């Protein structure tokens, strides 16, 4: 009585109470890459949202930067098991970009310079849950971390936060992306440990 035995419950102890199951804390910011790093000059950069009817909404770099900006501080969780807490970004909330987009789509396929894709329910890009970010920790987002701009969807595993993002295709049907067609989970909720298909 009164003796606390670590591990008595049989569950692995998380290093911090804020970590989803199976994750460890890292002070670093590991660079994950499935291919060569695209180098996209800002004066050639664009972001395009296309709807299920074929309508396209485009923003140049200057147009994107002229939109209202937010500075979210969020925890990020990579499916390779590292988590990083309290990361600070700056960019445009996806609600702002989706505001004038008339769509009945339920899904989005994010696509990137370099060919990467990842799919998300459109609802997960709304309600202040997702951003198009161009700044990390007060500095321009480096190319190896997805600059000039990447998606930030911190409530899902970080592979959903597409680096070098170029646009969103809004679709009625779900279209699995690069990792989702190779075994990874369609949704990827770190708190439910949805790493692989069927998890």
């Amino acid at each position, binding site marked *: 009585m009164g003796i606390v035995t670590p591990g008595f419950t049989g569950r692995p102890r998380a290093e911090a109470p804020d970590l989803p199951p199976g994750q460890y804390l890292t002070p670093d910011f*590991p*660079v*994950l*890459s*499935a*291919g*060569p790093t695209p180098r996209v000059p800002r004066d050639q950069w664009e972001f395009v949202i296309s709807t299920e009817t074929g309508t396209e909404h485009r923003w140049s770099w200057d147009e994107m930067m002229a939109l209202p900006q937010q500075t979210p501080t969020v925890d990020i969780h990579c*499916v*390779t098991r590292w988590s990083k807490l309290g990361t600070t970004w700056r960019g445009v909330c996806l609600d702002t970009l989706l505001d004038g987009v008339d769509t009945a789509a339920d899904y989005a396929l994010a696509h990137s310079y370099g*060919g990467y894709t990842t799919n998300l329910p459109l609802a997960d890009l709304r309600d202040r849950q997702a951003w198009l970010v161009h700044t990390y920790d007060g500095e321009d987002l480096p190319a190896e971390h997805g600059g000039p701009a990447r998606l930030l969807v911190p409530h899902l595993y970080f*592979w959903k936060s597409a680096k070098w993002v170029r646009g969103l295709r809004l679709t009625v049907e779900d279209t699995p992306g690069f*990792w989702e*067609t*190779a*075994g*990874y989970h369609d949704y990827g909720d770190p708190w439910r440990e949805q*790493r*692989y298909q069927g998890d």
Partner: protein
Amino acid sequence: MTALPYVDGNMLDGPLGEVFAVDLSTATGRCAHCGTPGPMAALRVYPYAPGLVGRCPTCLEVMLRLVRAPDRAWLDLRGATVLEFPMPLDRPR
């Protein structure tokens, strides 16, 4: 009664087991994107990712993806039209 022109996938165990038992690094693959053939050992493999991604050294398109879960694995070869493996002459077919 006519026999079906196909059998179930269990018959693949032997032939595929033989193929996957060989060393893939000795195989030659043809890129589905640019058509260039070459040794699989020459692929550019990006291992610092949620899975292994092997890219064609000529056009850098994806030829192979291998994702390994603790209890499962996924192999995607849609980017490789054909693989050629050297086989020992003394192995019965």
